[in-house]
């Protein structure tokens, strides 16, 4: 699924790196616990989270995660958006909650990172 399609499905606003919207992703992971995100082994996932601090961006940077969706209308500080911009991470923000965001994307064909 293209990031532009994801943006449309969850009525998200794009906060940085708009040129990345044509990128494709096959799976997603939703969590507020960076400990769990860091333990992921799968390739090419996007991250859905309510945690908007700088370590969310650092975690995504280390894992080569190319897109973060912030749920429930949470807005990161400008410095955090700046860091994401510099690291080539596309940030989307939606008013939907975590559950609804995941539900919409899952029912439209985006897969979880589960192995089986």
């Amino acid at each position: 699924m293209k990031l532009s399609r994801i943006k449309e499905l969850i009525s998200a606003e794009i906060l940085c790196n708009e040129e990345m919207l044509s990128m494709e992703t096959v799976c997603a992971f939703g969590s507020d616990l960076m400990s769990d995100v860091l333990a992921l082994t799968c390739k090419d996932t996007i991250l859905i989270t309510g945690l908007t601090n700088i370590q969310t961006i650092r975690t995504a940077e280390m894992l080569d995660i190319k897109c973060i969706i912030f749920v429930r209308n949470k807005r990161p500080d400008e410095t955090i958006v700046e860091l994401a911009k510099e690291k080539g991470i596309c940030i989307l923000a939606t008013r939907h909650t975590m559950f609804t965001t995941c539900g919409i994307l899952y029912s439209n064909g985006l897969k979880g990172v589960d192995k089986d």
Partner: protein
Amino acid sequence: MEELLSVKYDVVSGDFIRGGEASSNLKKLLNQLGVRSDIVKRICVACYEAEMNIVIHSVGGYIEAKIYNDKIEITAYDYGPGIPNIELAMQEGYSTASDVAREMGFGGGMGLPNIKRSSDEFYIKSEVGKFTEIKIIIYFN
């Protein structure tokens, strides 16, 4: 094997803003050196977990990386308080992280097992009141 390059970064206790910069700098360097991206990822996840452990659990320390032709050797060293029971600390889910660290998304008790899983060789040493040292080796091939 000849050492090509060595870098050292100080890591400050409780600094959640700058925490992760050492791993970020190392990532930049490894990408410049042309290390395969899946291996860079393993190295940086391990390094970042170790770096954040110094930020969260210790009084401060450093990360040192020695890069060779075929491998990287990372040492994460801090000046205490040390780990009383390493076997317990290595268990998935065990954590003494503060509320502040938990609010930042840490404290799952997954870091040390993840460092071990991500590396080809893993060594941990600690003395209560003195130091904790984690050494890992990851091969480039």
